[in-house]
């Protein structure tokens, strides 16, 4: 299993250099060939921003808008619709725990508690004081037979129990 991290800046900092330059711009141009409209490349373009920055700032949204011939307000409308796009900086590792009914039946709430304690994030949505961890509850991750699934950045981890949390957190040194 690969261990990934958002290479984004520390909380609060906002980069001013454009996201779309060099290979990232090439990647966007490649994406544009897949769709008959520029607008259709919006979701993948936003993913590129988030991969580069760790989150999507108003400045980044304006840059995407300019490139795709949209307004910044339109782009913000789309960003705010989709819950996986971060409109604020998050911890270096972003942890999503499924707590919908099937996982709830299998003890997801105890997994959330264990993660909050072990990472030091303390509260849902808050970032740990060392800036390394943000833990949130999410609705159905689509792996109900492998309760409780946890998404750490891009790593999808199945069958997490409170007992496995310490080992899981330790993996992300």
């Amino acid at each position: 299993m690969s261990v990934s991290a958002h290479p984004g800046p520390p909380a609060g900092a906002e980069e001013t250099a454009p996201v779309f330059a060099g290979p990232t711009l090439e990647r966007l141009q490649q994406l544009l060939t897949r769709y008959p409209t520029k607008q259709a490349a919006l979701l993948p373009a936003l993913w590129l921003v988030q991969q580069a920055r760790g989150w999507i700032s108003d400045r980044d949204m304006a840059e995407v808008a300019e490139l795709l011939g949209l307004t910044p307000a339109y782009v913000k409308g789309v960003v705010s619709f989709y819950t996986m796009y971060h409109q604020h900086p998050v911890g270096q590792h972003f942890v999503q725990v499924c707590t919908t009914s099937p996982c709830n039946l299998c003890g997801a709430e105890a997994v959330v508690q264990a993660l909050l304690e072990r990472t030091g994030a303390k509260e849902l949505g808050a970032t740990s004081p060392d800036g390394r961890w943000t833990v949130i509850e999410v609705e159905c991750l689509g792996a109900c037979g492998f309760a409780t699934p946890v998404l750490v950045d891009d790593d999808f981890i199945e069958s997490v129990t409170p007992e496995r949390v310490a080992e899981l957190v330790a993996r992300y040194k």
Partner: protein
Amino acid sequence: MGFPHKPHPRETLVLSQHFGQAEARSYKGWVKRGGYAMLEQALATEPAKIIDVVKESGLRGRGGAGFPTGLKWSFMPKEKKKPHYLCVNADESEPGTFKDREIMRWTPHALLEGTAIAAHAIQAEVAYIYVRGEFTEPYAILEKALTEAGAAGVFGQLQIHLHRGAGAYICGEETALMNSIEGKRGNPRIKPPFPAAAGVFGMPTTINNVETLVAVPHILKRGAAWYKGLSLSNPKSTGTKLFSVCGHVRAPGNYEVTLGFPLKDLVYELCGGMRPGRTLKACIPGGSSVPILDRAETEGCLLDYEGVVEQGSMLGSGGVIVFDDSADMVYQIMRLARFYAHESCAQCTQCREGTAWTTKILERILAGQGKTADLDLLLDLADNMTGKTICVLSDSCAAPVVSGIKKFRGEFEDYLAGRRRPVLVA
């Protein structure tokens, strides 16, 4: 990554026969298993003939609605005047359902082959596979498979692209999915126009579920008559289906059985039944959007489109959620309502307000602050949320609430009368 369970003798392995074989994920491994032979044959066959075979097989959409697949394909214009599109719905997000994820992670080429055959049948030159944003692993596996098969040139002129979602259950609704591909908020569209007339980018479009498409090469290979013969109860329900079983069973997982298989046997035999000392209380047979069955209904239910309706629910996506006697039904129904409140796109008032208020009232009951009139209020709300909105998300929130109050009223009343200790803080 979790490994699939050992096949049970009562399963009928068609779609899942290569689950667990890592080699099947590679292009070479897939070709070795006979993969892409049906695509080659299909590309040399007239589209109308393929549609006829699929119609004849009785295959129905596996995403939840159960609409006949061949008929859906036949709605596409025969005379091609505009570009045609195929959208593959891999936005699997229905609580209780995790079959498409398993198909994509073990047999990505099966999906690509089915997609290419369907695209040929509806004369589409571009296909988008919409994968939910959280499915990082299936996405990477599919991407690799697509690159390999594309390099081998098996798709001819067809372009297949992956499109990653970003966390919105509603994008599994076909018109919301098309809006999301177009770079818009995932709001469902009013129908008509139907997608076959004006779909993605305003062009004729067909949207199919992952599991539906992976069945197609098997139908072409073994014939419509063979597929039609896979039916244990009602002849209108044919073929095999993957049932995702989760919750309080000993062996959760994806089980492939012929339609018409008894739900009782799936739960007690294939999944090993309840945990020691526990008994079955309830079951949601088709993903969280369908009505809850009580124990007697569960034990009398046959798993096909008609059989589940007979018990007062729906087959839906085949996501089976099992509750044993330790489950607090009021709490579980609140969790489901919370899901729908979170996932409502908020376009329609009945849904935006209805899902939020349903959740608040259920939370109030669980906090010991419910009022006697709350159950009637919930039912009244549910009535106003059913059949009155652009899509069925609102109806889906109402279904577990209405069936839950009807079948487990005593549990609600225990909270209202203070016989049960509150589990939430007001």
